[in-house]
């Protein structure tokens, strides 16, 4: 199973989730939703949500093989997520209402992935 592999030709269609930073093709997001955040982002089949909550602008790809053991995953707060390709930085801002839903309903504190959070540390 090589579901997380994206051939170079498809790289231009990649998007990164602004919440968990997982990187997948747009079509896969649309088909399957975000494997980590689907519960509150509801990206599956939802083009608008997809555009709002994922970004084409990201950098620093991470191939995550073992989220539980990897320090990189821990540092990136990816432990607990599924295996896959993630981004170190995802530009773009999650719309406020999505953040609100996320924090209220899912009780998940939103950490922006665009670098603004790290600077605070």
């Amino acid at each position, binding site marked *: 199973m090589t579901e997380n592999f994206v051939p170079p030709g498809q790289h231009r269609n990649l998007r990164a989730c602004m919440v968990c930073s997982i990187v997948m093709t747009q079509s896969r997001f649309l088909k399957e939703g975000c494997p980590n955040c689907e*519960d509150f982002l509801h990206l599956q089949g939802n083009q608008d949500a997809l*555009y709002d909550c994922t970004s084409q602008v990201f950098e620093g790809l*991470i191939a*995550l093989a073992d989220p539980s053991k990897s320090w*990189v995953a821990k540092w990136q*707060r990816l432990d607990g997520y599924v295996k896959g390709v993630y981004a*170190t930085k995802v530009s773009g801002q*999650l719309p406020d209402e999505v953040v609100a839903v996320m924090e209220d309903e899912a009780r998940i504190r939103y*950490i922006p992935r665009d670098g603004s959070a790290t600077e605070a*540390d």
Partner: protein
Amino acid sequence: MASPSEDVSPPDSPASDGSGTMPSPGRVDGSPAIARRQSEDRLDAGNDDEDEDPEEEGEETAPREDDDDEEDEEDDDEEEITGHRRKRRRERRNQFLDVEAEVDEDEDENEDDEDELNELKDNFIADTHPDDLADLPVGGETDDRRHRELDRRREMEASLDAEKQAEILRQRYAKIRTGRALGDSAVVPKRLLLPSVDDPSIWAVRCKEGKEREAVFAIMKRIEERMGTKEELAITSAFERGGTHSTMKGFIYVEAQRQADIMVALTDLMNVYPRTKMMLVEIKEMPDLLRVTKTPALEPGAYVRLKRPPKYAGDLAQVIDVTDTGLELRVRFVPRLDYGLHEDVNAPTDAFGAKRKRPVAGPRPPQRLFSEVEARKRHSKLLGGGTAGAKSWNYAGDEYVNGYCEKEVKLQTLIVKDVNPTLEEVTRFASGAEDGTENLDLNALAASLKASTANASYLPGDIIEVYEGEQKGVIGKAISVQADIVTMAVSEGDLKGQTIEVPVKGLRKRFRNGDHVKVIGGSRFRDEVGMVVKISEDRVTLLSDHGNTEITVFSKDLREASDSGGSGTLGKFELWDLVQLDPSTVACIVKVDRESLVVLDQNNQTRTVMPSQISNKLEKRRHAVATDRNGNEIRLDETVKENGGEARSGKIIHIHRAYLFLRNPSQNENAGVFVTRTTAVSSVAAKGAVTASTGPDLTSMNPAMKRNPATGGDMAPPKSFGRDRSIGQTVTIRKGPYKGLLGIVKEATDSNARVELHTKNKTVNVSKDDLAFKDKLTGQEFNPNSRGGFGGGRGGATPRGRGGLGSATPGGWDGGRTPGAAGGVERTPAWGARTPAVANGGRTPAWKSSGDNAGGRTPGWADGSRTVNPYDGSRTSYGGGNRTPAWSSGAKTPAYGMSDAFAAGSKTPGYSGGGNDTWGSKTPAYQQPASNDNWGSNQQQSNNGWGANSYDAPTPGVNMSAPTPAAMNAPTPGAYSAPTPAPYNAPTPAAAPTPAPGWGGGGGGGWGAPTPQAMDAPTPGAQQGYYAAPTPGAYGAMPETPAANWQDDNQPRYTDN
């Protein structure tokens, strides 16, 4: 222990407490607690684990417990009142519980929770544990109370509204649903996530640049492919931090426990080179690998550059709107439209009738605001949606508002970093106000510029200020600059005296009001210089030195102007330099300001330019020659006068094509410089006039000098014309480091020679004095100049005597002078007789003398004079006087003495002094050449012409016509030419070598020989021409009675002159 005794009392309390509704006095209420405690004490050891879990739960159930807490607290209060009970209890429990808990307020809660839980346990245990039963006499009652409490709690819970309950439930279970919670990790501060030795290590592995992403995906693919197989990859992650501007490109980073795992994982992967040196990343550096810096959000008004489409690549655009996600923007930019001007009409059309796009050939159209009128010309079909009021149009699929093209673009198609807009570009976006003034949003510009450091240039010595970061406010002087780090010596504040390193990002240059600064960098005010009048933030307003206009620039674009001007130079430009402004314009610098120059161009216009506007500096061409309106040669440093107009005069400082830049120090305007054309001036002074000497300047009056202004001032140096005689000679060096070496003279000046050494392939500069000339064939030493010298010396001597003679019979002059003429008629015979001798002798010597110098000359004459004293005498004097050389040499002086006339008249004393009209006329005759068409034009312009003519004329003509042709020829030349040419020819004559011998002989016979040589020797056609010329001319013109003619013709001319 006291507890047992206390425990005794509780038995009553259950009774009183029994109803549970009664307000419970502490004492009574305390009993259950005690019971609990006891049981707890006993059970603690075993139940520790159980205790923990419920505790955690406790937080979430907090609301429910609030009431209980109150109760418990009451309990506690009671207990405290009752003394040591609480203390005791805690001590006991401390054996098993974390002491820390006691400190915190939460601890109370925990305790309470525990209490509560223990209560439950108690209930639980009470039934079963025999000890409890033993301790509690009224165990049953206690149980009952518990039940009742529980009921109460349930009641309370029931009373909470459903919503709250739902909330509680969700809180309790929400996390479980998402498994490992994001919320959880969010709480953990990053510093607790720092890597430890237990974490896997990270290695940096070389990777093909630009292929990092592909590599990561390839690794992902391999991970998944091998997952669950026996060769499952042992790496935990792999990542890249590539990017065109990243410093980490060319690497991927792989996280694994062992390096060997990486080798397995990466072998045979494309673009990854695990076999090259793999670098282990230090633990403390690991977080840096994943550092993320926020890209500053783009605000409306900020500037970006477009990457696409190609037509606009690199163009500046201004953000006018940003979507929520910040990933899409609306920007405006100045369009590049040609409105179909270069459209390929014949381009094939596809099925949809649209012209297939062809790559745009040639340069893209310039940036211009959209013009509706232009668009209508060819593309009215494509234009639409415009209303004049809104100034908004649709054209060819794009929207144009206020002339700008507005477009929705994606963030990734923009260059956001290091935009560095120049003020010039930015001014295109200046929103023009109603009144036409430009309103530039400097704040937006500053925001665009701030992040960019590429443009900021700091130099050691700049005064800088830190405006960002920990060292904010520190002021100092830059010591060194390395890439983005500036080392500065702090000059103010706490850190004074220290040297710190700061990133360029947080720096700005610091100026004070009144500083004199120069604009550098990429603004359109570049090179402006002015005084700082206002500083706000990093924007500095300065008052320009010229024009007195205020300009505002960023402090980073400023630099302290170098010391105040006044040195007369600006960079490589100096006052009075000739510079090229554009291909067709040259100008002379007439004023040097601190940072600008005032120039006078060839069209007589003065303008102010900056050094950067000057394309080139024209070196002074020392040998530039032009002709004035009279056809006279004019050269640098000569004084000329304008004909007509203001008749200004001035010294030539530049000759550029037909333009002369003259300087007249007495004129104020333009530093005394003015420009004129060569055809508008005439030369007013001889070249020699420039060099002032004490006493009357004879040279400047010497007509002979005028003939060839190119010669040096005084006659002193026997200028050789044409090729230096020493060139090509074999020489030995007599002095200096090369002493004794043999070589060949390759080049020579008056005083120095460049000698190519035989011994090694080297050419050295040696003073001519240090050379010994060797005959190429014989190797015999000789002095190429010596002959002349010889002759000279002799001449000098002889002449004196003769001079005396000559002087005695001044009368002879007339004849002598225009010997040809006079002689022609009267003397001819005499001449003739003499002629041979004279001619030869006179000539040659003359030549020689001139060659050698003055000395040689005179004597020559003298020789000639021998035959005819008067003649000679006159000659000598003449030659001497006229020929500066004679004068200067001093040898001649006698000549002076000889003829009063000479002494009196500095120049052509012969003329004035001599009192001989004829003579006078003659002399002038010489001068005439300069001004007179006959003589002057010919002579000056082309010696050759003369030479030719003269040559031809004299010999044949003279000979032919003249009865005594020989005589004619001979004498004339001698007489005439001797004087004049002498100075000129001086060098040539030097050739005279032959004569030398003649001289030596002292006899006339000797002379004969010399003459020819002399003639020949002079190589220079010019000189010969000269020589010959005069004579012949004269002769030729009036073969028979030249004297008469001459005098008549010439006299008036002279007077004119």
